[in-house]
Structures are given as C-alpha cells and as structure tokens.
C-alpha cells in the first residue's frame, strides 16, 4: 500500500516536503475514524459500496472487466494470508459450470487478480449443467479425479466427502471467509462430513413463492388475499379458470406446476407441495425413513401432493401444453412472460423479474415463503394432524467450492487451492454475486442489509420483499433440508419418469403413481447399498 502511495505521489511530482505534509494529513484523517470507533468498518463498507457500484444498477450486464475489478477490490482478505508471489509455479485445475454464461465465467474474472498477485495459474474445466453430474460421477467411480478445485452442490457431499475425495478445510480459511456470517441452515452439518468441514459456501438455495400482485387484492380476480396454504393455492387456481389476465389480456392461470422432468431437478417442485404436508417439525426426515431407508414418497402426505396436481390437470387449470412444461418453462417462459399468477422457484426469478429484458411482471411481482398447509401428515404416527404447517424447501442447498484430495500431499498447492476457493467465497465478493447476475442467491446474514442495496440504487421495497422471502425461508424452524446422500438425483430422476406417467393418466391413481416411485427408489437404494445409505442419510440429517 505504501509503495502504491509513493508511486502515485511520484506520478503527481510532489516534493518531499509536500509529501510529508500530505502523509501527516492522511495519517490524521485515518486516525480520526478509528478513534471514533468505526474505522475498519468504514474501510470495509467502502469496498462493499464500491463493488456494488460495478457496473451499477441499470447500467447493463456486468462484463469480464467488471468481474476482474470486483475481484481486485476484494483481494484484501487474501493479502492478509498470502504473500505476493507465494504461489509462483503452482498450477491448479478448477472444474465448474458454465450455466447461462455465469459461474466459471465469473470465477475467471474474480480470480484473475488473485492469479496476478499470488503467481498461481488456474486451468479451467467448464461444464454444462447436464454434463456436470455424469462427469463428476465418472471421475469418482473410475478414480480419475483430474481437478483440484470443484464447484459442487451440497447434495453431492455424500458421494465425494463420504468417499474421502475431499481435502479438509484449514482453520485459516474459516477465518478468512467469515463462516459465522452464513445463514443458519448453511451452518454445519451442511458442508461437513463426519465432523470435518469441506465446503466454502458461495450460494444459498431455497425455493420461494412468487406471485402476481395484480391478481390479488380487493376486487382482483384471484381474491382479496394472497394464498398462504396449498389448499388456498389450489382453490385460486380453479377459480381463475376462464378469467382474463389483468396484465396481458390472455387467459388467467393460477399456480404453475412444471409437469415435465428436468434431469431430476423437476422433482423439487412436487416436493415444494409435499413438504408442507409431510415435513413434521418433530422429524428431520421427510423423504425416507432414516432407520430403514423405506421411501416416504408413497405416504398419504406425498400422495396428497400428487393428487393436488392431478386434480388441477383434470380441472384444466394449467396453461395449454403444461404437460410439456419443465421448470425452465414455468419460470422464464411463463411466469416472467406474464402467464400464470403463482410460482415456486429459486431466487433467479426474483433477480430476473426486474432486470431481465423478457420479464413483463417486474412491477407486479411479490414474494413469500413456500405456502403451508392447514393440516400435516405425521409419518411416524401414520396419521394426519389437523394442525397448520409450513416447511420451506432448501432445494439443492446451494453451490459451494471444495478442494479435492489431489492437493493434500503438497502443502504449497493445498494452500493455493484453498486461497483461491476462499477468495471466491469471501464476504464482500459474495455481496456482489448476490446482487448481480451470477447464478447465486444471497446466503449470508450480511446480505440482508436492505439499506446497503438501496444505497447501491435498488428499489428498497422490492429488495425487502425479495430478500425477505429468502431470509424467512432460510431461517424457518421447520425448513426441509435436502438429504446429502449418494445418488439423490437418481431418485429424483426416476421419480420424474413415474410422475410423467401418472400425470398423463397411465396410472390409475396418485397412490399408484407414488407406489411406483417408491418401488423404483427401493431398487436404487438396494443397488447403491442400503446400509451405507442409511448411515449417510442419518449423517446428512445430523442424526
């Protein structure tokens, strides 16, 4: 820093005397806020304010130059732990995604200044979402892990950490990334396995409820109140049949269930309905019985969720061709384009509603947590309880950065890998990824400072509504946490096939559909290994 100051002043051709005078003045200025007790905070706030202004709200999409600038401004934490040029000669391989031209493309920009400062070089493996799972699975199964750092979702911790493929996080990293700032549900056991920490969280996933405000209110077509339970959501969806959308003039529709699979990810959307029925506050498990791994997907609560969808199909409540609508369609082609009035989705909908060129609902969209239910099913007792229930779904538990055991034997390389990962998971940098298109949702308590967003130019009411729905979901005492067990997406994928048959009328009932899913899940459990699945399921639930 002093060298920078000296060079800057040299460029300004200052005399030695003027320079000393200036230094004294700067010193006095620097001392004042410290004496007043808010010095460091001001410096950090300054960085946060600066990065939130890159490129600035309404100034178009960020570019690689912006990502590099943000990366450079956030290098402070790295510099505290790593000397300049300390990793010269180190080469690391980073495997991640390139969804929507985000993820790895941002990481490249963020890490460019880190590479310049540390002297390390990063080689990139970019994968599309669809190719990611098989690539990772094959690498694990065939023992050909060819990457040092990996961007990975928590559901895969069972397959990686559970198989000893990951390197344990050093303590200095925990300090650097300020792990205590993570929202409650992302705290351990998430990111840990057998008590060891492996994950630097860079995302927080949950599904939130998005609705059209112009459908609800006095005299509105959807009723006076925004639905709070799935029973109300279903009733509104039926009541809207034959009505006209107030914004587009097209047929009005209620809730948008995606009826087509999405490589396993589509199952989350049935789970949104089901968790309200089956996630009991006294029981962490909701997908399987933790003692036997017997699926719960065919209990009365889950069957009710499937029946809800079947009833709405039979009633004609969905848009035409909904049977061919996957979550990408319901979120981006339908809801943001003005079709339908209610939706469950990840945070992308919230950030895209105002910023996407294709969105027409930016001014009329509101947010909430996953609708609840007026009754809940107690899986242990095997009976319904006439008690209201809420259970937001933490779908996918967010992306994290992990370091593989390829670097464990080389201390210099190991430190470099963790330093790069920590840079991406840094507190300040994460504020930027939460605020701008990145593919990541807010996930730290410090992200929910609405004034900070408002100062950067965001509409405070909108941000409070959007972020509030995230915060309320994360902090919900009965949140449904996804089990981090091997093959979890195999279960989801096979369920999607059976649901598609059920929705198209090839099964006689919701119960028969659910039974088919349960039977397929049993096969998968037996194939992967029931005992190991039970152990890992319990571990992932912290039981």
């Amino acid at each position, binding site marked *: 820093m002093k060298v920078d100051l000296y060079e800057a002043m040299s460029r300004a051709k200052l005399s030695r005397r003027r320079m000393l005078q200036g230094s004294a003045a700067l010193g006095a200025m620097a001392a004042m806020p410290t004496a007043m007790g808010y010095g460091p905070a001001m410096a950090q706030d300054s960085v946060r304010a600066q990065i939130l202004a890159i490129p600035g709200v309404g100034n178009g999409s960020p570019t690689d130059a912006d990502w590099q600038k943000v990366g450079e401004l956030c290098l402070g934490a790295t510099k505290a732990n790593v000397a300049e040029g300390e990793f010269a000669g180190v080469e690391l391989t980073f495997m991640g995604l390139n969804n929507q031209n985000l993820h790895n493309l941002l990481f490249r920009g963020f890490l460019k200044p880190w590479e310049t400062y540390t002297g390390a070089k990063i080689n990139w493996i970019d994968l599309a979402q669809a190719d990611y799972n*098989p690539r990772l699975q094959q690498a694990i199964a065939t023992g050909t892990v060819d990457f040092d750092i990996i961007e990975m979702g928590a559901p895969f911790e069972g397959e990686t950490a559970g198989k000893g493929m990951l390197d344990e996080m050093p303590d200095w990293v925990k300090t650097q990334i300020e792990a205590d700032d993570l929202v409650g549900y992302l705290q351990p056991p998430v990111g840990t396995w057998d008590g060891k920490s492996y994950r630097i969280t860079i995302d927080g996933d949950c599904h939130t409820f998005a609705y059209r405000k112009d459908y609800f209110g006095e005299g509105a077509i959807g009723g006076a109140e925004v639905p709070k339970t799935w029973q109300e959501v279903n009733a509104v969806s039926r009541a809207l049949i034959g009505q006209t959308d107030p914004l587009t003039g*097209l047929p009005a529709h209620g809730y948008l269930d995606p009826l087509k699979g999405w490589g396993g990810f589509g199952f989350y959307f049935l789970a949104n309905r089901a968790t309200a029925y089956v996630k009991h506050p006294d029981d962490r498990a909701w997908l399987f019985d933790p003692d036997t791994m017997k699926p719960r997907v065919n209990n009365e609560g889950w069957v009710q969720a499937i029946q809800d969808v079947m009833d709405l199909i039979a009633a004609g409540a969905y848009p035409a061709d909904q049977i061919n609508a996957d979550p990408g369609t319901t979120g981006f082609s339908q809801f943001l384009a003005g079709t339908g009035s209610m939706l469950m989705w990840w945070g992308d909908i919230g950030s895209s509603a105002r910023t996407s060129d294709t969105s027409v609902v930016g001014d009329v969209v509101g947010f909430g947590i996953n609708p609840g239910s007026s009754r809940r099913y107690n899986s242990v007792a095997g009976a319904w309880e006439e008690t209201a229930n809420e259970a937001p779904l933490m779908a996918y538990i967010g992306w994290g950065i992990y370091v593989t055991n390829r670097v464990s034997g080389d201390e210099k390389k190991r430190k470099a890998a963790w330093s790069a990962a920590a840079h991406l998971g840094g507190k300040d940098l994460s504020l930027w990824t939460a605020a701008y298109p990145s593919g990541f949702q807010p996930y730290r308590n410090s992200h929910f400072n609405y004034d900070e967003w408002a100062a950067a130019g965001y509409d405070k009411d909108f941000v409070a509504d959007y972020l509030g729905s995230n915060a309320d979901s994360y902090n919900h005492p009965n949140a449904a946490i996804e089990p981090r067990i091997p093959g979890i*997406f*195999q279960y989801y994928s096979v369920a999607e096939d059976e649901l*598609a048959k059920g929705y198209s009328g*090839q099964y006689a009932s919701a119960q028969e559909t659910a039974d088919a899913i349960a039977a397929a899940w049993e096969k*998968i459990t037996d*194939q*992967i290994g029931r005992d190991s699945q039970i152990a890992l399921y319990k571990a992932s639930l912290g039981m």
Partner: protein
Amino acid sequence: MLLVAAAQLLHMTGSAEFGFENWRPTLYTYITWAICLCWGQVLLHGEHGKRTLFVLPAALFVISLTVFPLLFGLIIAFSDWNLSSPDGRSFNGLENVRQMWADPFYWNAMLNMVWYVLAILVEYAIAFALALALNAEIRARKFFRVAFLLPLMLSPVAVSWMIGKSMLEPRFGPIASLGRALGWDDPSFFGSPWIAKATIMVMDAWTFIPFMMIMILAGLQAIPKELHEAAKVDGANGWRAFWEVTFPMMLPVSITAILIRIIFKLKLADIVIAVTSGGPGGATDTVTSFIFREYRDRSNVGYGTLLAMVYLVVIVIAMTLLMKFAERISRPRT
C-alpha cells in the same frame, strides 16, 4: 498377452486376488505384442511380411478400438454398476436381463420406435415427390435444390429449439397462432401422446427428408432418358411411365435410402431429449433417449450398457432381415 489380460480379468471380476489396478499393463502388453507381431512378419516372411505391414497395424488398431471396448461393454452389461455405489462394480449374472424384461419404459420406447420407423414410408413418399419435382424442368431449380437441403445442414438441437420450442410454442408460436385462427381452441403440440409423437415425427422428417430426396434425385438423374422416350413412343402416359419405368429403376436407390434412413431413425434421441424429454408419459421416448436417461441421470452404467447391447442386437437382426427382404424385392424379374 492373453495371460496378462486373463489375470486382469480375473482380478476385476474378483475371482483372483492377483492382477493389476487398471488395464494399462494389458494395453502396454498388447502394444508390445502388436509390434512384435509386425516385426515377426517381416523377419519370417521377408517381402511378403513387409506387404502385410500395410494392413496389419491398422487391423490391430481397429481391434483395440472396437473389439476390446465391445468385450468390455459385454462384461459391464452383466454387472451391477451404479456410479454412486461405494462398492463399485459387481457381476450380477442375468439380473439386468430380468430387469429389462420387466421394464415398461424400455418396451414402451421399443414400441415407439416401431411407429417412428414406419413413418419413414411417408418420408420416402414425400422425398420421392420432391425429387421428381426437382428433376423436372422447373424454374429456379438450383435454388430449390439448395433450399430443400438446408434443414439437413441444421443441428437437430437447433431444429428442436427453432421448431419445437419456438414455432410450436402454444401461446405465441406462429403455428399455434395459425391453429387458433383455424379454429383449434387449444393448439398444444406436445400435450397429448399421439399428437406429440406425430409432431416429433414431423420435426425429424423435416430434417431428414432432404437426405432421402438428394439420394433419390441422384438416382433419377442416372436413369437414361432413352427409357422414358421409349415408353412415350410405346404410348405410356406420365403415370404409367412412372410405375413401369421410373419406380422400378429407382428401387435399388430407394431401398438404400430407406435402409440408411432407418439406421438414422433408430438413433433418434436429440430432438426428443431437447423438446419433450420423452413425454408426455413416455409417448415420444426412443430407446436411445431412454438409455441416455438411464446412464446420464441415473448413473446406472451396467443396466444402461445391457440395454444398449440388446438394442444393438435387435438392430443387427432387423437390418439383416430388411436387407434380405430388400434384396429379394429388388432382384430383376425374369
């Protein structure tokens, strides 16, 4: 070489404790053996051996790239190998066959393939008609030849998005709008099983009819003009000349075009995966798209490989029968 391979095989199947961690030693042994074999040919047979070297290395290379993977695939096909299983791969006898026998998704996809293949007859008729039109003395013939070929140059994924996701989009798609204008209340092209299947057939046909058309056109241009002139002199009208001269002369080309098209069709997957994911309820699923799902989404390598192997056998048998049938009907009548 065989000893090394056998040791590795026994080790891999768990029958013996000795062996190697991976197949690399076997590969190195094979390369060494191949070099020795080539060298030996020269030493033993002199000039004749040198001539053998023009073919032998290529043959050995092909063996390593086709025969070995095929054998490896066969082993996997009779294994229980889920990539998520901590126990890895294990031999499970005929369990995968039993599972396949009881798998409604696989047989449903197989049945769909029958419909998809039958649709080739319609494609052939359209391709023939287009080829006849382009073979005639029409205006802008060169332009139309190029224009009709364009769909073939497009990636099936691009076709999926351009037609399946855009033009057929039920709310704003131009074809859906046209359907509404013509009185179709609910123009949904992928909502019901048969319409979805037919729409996929049309999209696939749109891409590949130009391929059949260009083959038939080449055949038409090879028919000597004298034959048509002779038919004309004999008093045959255009319709009769087509059935008595053109069509019989085109039979060998037509059969070739249809057989190649069947091979393409049996591999149909990309359009289905991109547009319907096999839905609604498996109505548009193909064997290839189902195997892809089984392997990619479910990491079920053993079962997926068995399905692929069985499909390969079915294709080989079907194509052999078809070729025999084609040979019979294209044999000149005496």
